[in-house]
């Protein structure tokens, strides 16, 4: 993991001091709410329905056990003993008091954490593949350039008042586990024909009101040039992105209006200048950062591991959990465990301080002290020996997080929705809970196979409904919560936008409607291995529409 040096510590401390005096100036009235709002948002502080909400950055989803313990302590001390992991690999506290935020930030800083730029019209927390460093298919650990980008984008003097928010994601393998084409900039680590590692740059993706799968703008940028290229991308946007209409201010609209080729041309024109300005960090600095992500000292383990094989044979529930929740590790004898924060009937992404402490302890005992956060609102213990998997599974059972449903229909993404969020039009969480109860039967879940349900409580799409195989969008129709269904979305390397099926359903009827869609799929699939998404892509929406609305 990256470890702060004296400069990182100094800057983080200075930021705490700066924001603390901004809070004081707000409380004395020197700053009006209009003036303070962009400042507090740039520190991840929202006003929601019931209280302030603080979004804390978990850069590229990597946490140490010490940091997770601190996050749990903060939940107990400053909040109501729980917190919420988000689709952008961050953590949110729901019941925060403005006058306590300075103390809270100081505690975060003590474990090298912050809430910098987790909201606001600036470059947000950079996200990455949760299996960074442990996945066998990786070209380069995406956390290296993610940390380079984190530092470059922190308090960027030019890009802190952009037309709109700006999200960057990095994936290091051919398999995209970071939904990069749904980001303002998606970075895919690739090798060119000469065998050099570099970056393919996608620009102008996003969800929200106008979902767009980002086009490829530049197939290959060399490592030494990455920051100057990004800076050129951002400058063109900062100068020419729309500022007259908040719904048209994201870079996706600029790229669409200019056309990807013209946008790329303008970036090329700007690039020599950002290069000449000395924006790129020296190779030595990249090497310094890369050293923090060098593989830890793994044991040499011969597979098969007898105890692991025996436990799988003896306990079928454990074997099933391994099948869904343990991702292959590049090192023999190890696995990467996804901890499902989606217990049946639970709140997706929520964890109590006791659960967080327990997971942090497990990370120390079983995973070299490391935890990851996924964009599907789950946690990962990236470095677990196969011989320890059974103990991990048992311990997870004790804290209520042993659900073997990762990638299955009850592994649902849901935004906080109208239960918490001041922007929401409808509740998301209760729908997720009832769907999860409806499909609780694990045999049926395995029969259905990979199926991602993603639920957003408003068009801002924090629940990624556009990228759901089944997407659910909550809307407000004359004071009544209604839920629209989209089908065929995907957030991986085959990214596509879900298509709206038809009129929405009430809260009572939406679960039954999803059940019908699933049964329709089960009836029409050609073979059990044909997934929901594959079947939908083969047959299109017609049979699904008919199952919901009848023949037209």
């Amino acid at each position, binding site marked *: 993991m990256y470890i702060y040096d004296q400069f990182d510590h100094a800057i983080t401390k200075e930021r705490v001091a700066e924001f603390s005096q901004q809070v004081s100036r*707000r*409380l004395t*009235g020197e700053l009006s*709410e209009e003036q303070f709002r962009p400042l507090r948002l740039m520190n991840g502080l929202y*006003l*929601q*329905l*019931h*209280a*302030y909400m603080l979004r804390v950055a978990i850069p590229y989803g990597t946490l140490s056990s010490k940091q997770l313990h601190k996050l749990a302590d903060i939940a107990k001390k400053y909040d*109501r003993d729980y917190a919420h992991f988000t689709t952008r690999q961050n953590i949110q506290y729901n019941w*925060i*008091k*403005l*006058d306590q935020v300075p103390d809270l930030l100081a505690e975060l800083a003590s474990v090298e954490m912050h809430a910098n730029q987790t909201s606001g019209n600036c470059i947000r927390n950079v996200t990455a593949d949760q299996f960074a460093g442990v996945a066998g298919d990786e070209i380069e650990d995406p956390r290296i350039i993610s940390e380079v980008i984190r530092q470059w984008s922190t308090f960027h003097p030019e890009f802190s008042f952009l037309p709109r928010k700006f999200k960057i994601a990095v994936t290091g393998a051919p398999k995209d586990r970071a939904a990069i084409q749904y980001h303002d900039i998606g970075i895919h680590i690739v090798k060119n024909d000469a065998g050099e590692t570099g970056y393919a740059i996608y620009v102008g993706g996003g969800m929200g009101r106008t979902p767009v799968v980002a086009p490829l703008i530049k197939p290959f940028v060399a490592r030494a040039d990455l920051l100057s290229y990004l800076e050129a991308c951002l400058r063109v946007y900062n100068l020419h992105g729309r500022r007259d209409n908040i719904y048209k201010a994201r870079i996706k609209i600029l790229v669409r209006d200019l056309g990807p080729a013209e946008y790329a041309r303008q970036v090329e024109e700007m690039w020599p200048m950002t290069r000449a300005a000395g924006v790129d960090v020296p190779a030595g600095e990249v090497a310094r950062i890369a050293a923090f992500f060098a593989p830890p000292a793994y044991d040499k383990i011969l597979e098969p591991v007898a105890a692991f094989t025996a436990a799988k044979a003896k306990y079928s529930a454990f074997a099933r959990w391994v099948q869904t929740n343990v991702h292959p590790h590049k090192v023999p004898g190890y696995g990467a465990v996804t901890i499902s924060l989606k217990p049946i009937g639970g*709140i997706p992404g929520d964890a109590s301080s006791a659960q967080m402490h327990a997971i942090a302890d497990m990370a120390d005992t079983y995973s070299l002290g490391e935890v990851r956060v996924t964009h599907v609102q789950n946690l990962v213990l990236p470095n677990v020996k196969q011989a320890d998997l059974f103990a991990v599974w048992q311990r997870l059972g004790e804290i209520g997080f042993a659900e073997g449903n990762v990638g299955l229909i009850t592994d649902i993404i849901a935004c906080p929705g*109208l*239960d*918490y969020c*001041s922007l*929401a039009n409808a*509740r998301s*969480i*209760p729908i997720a*809970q009832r769907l999860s109860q409806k499909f609780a039967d694990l045999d049926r879940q395995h029969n259905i196979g990979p199926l991602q349900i993603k639920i957003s409580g408003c068009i801002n799409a924090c629940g990624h409904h556009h990228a759901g195989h089944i997407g659910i969008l909550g809307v407000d129709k004359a*004071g009544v*919560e209604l839920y629209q269904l989209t089908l065929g979305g995907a957030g991986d390397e085959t990214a596509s936008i879900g298509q709206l099926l038809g009129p929405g359903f009430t809260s009572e009827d939406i679960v039954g409607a999803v059940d019908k869609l699933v049964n329709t799929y089960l009836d029409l699939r050609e073979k059990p291995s044909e997934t929901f998404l594959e079947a939908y892509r083969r047959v299109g929406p017609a049979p699904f529409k008919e199952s919901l609305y009848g023949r037209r």
Partner: protein
Amino acid sequence: MAQAKPQNKILTANRLRNGETVYYTAAGEWSPYVSEARIATTAEDADALAKIGAAAYAANTVIDVAVIDVNPGAGAKPSHIREVIRATGPTVRVDLNKSVAPPQR
């Protein structure tokens, strides 16, 4: 022709200092309990509430000030589901919900 009966309204906001959801009461204070809200039954009353809200915002006491609809009858019951949830808390964590009225002494 009879005029449509005006919608009953109350004034709500969040405290600047701690973000707590509050309602403006007949006693001229901000209470966390919606049932204590002063109900405006006429358009003039509602305008008066809006002015009080604007002044409290300008004085940096509260933010997110809004005059919202409540159902007819005694006891302020918000009309829209958003405000119902705001008055009590997340429907998915009833253990954390607050009452609409202050606890009995």
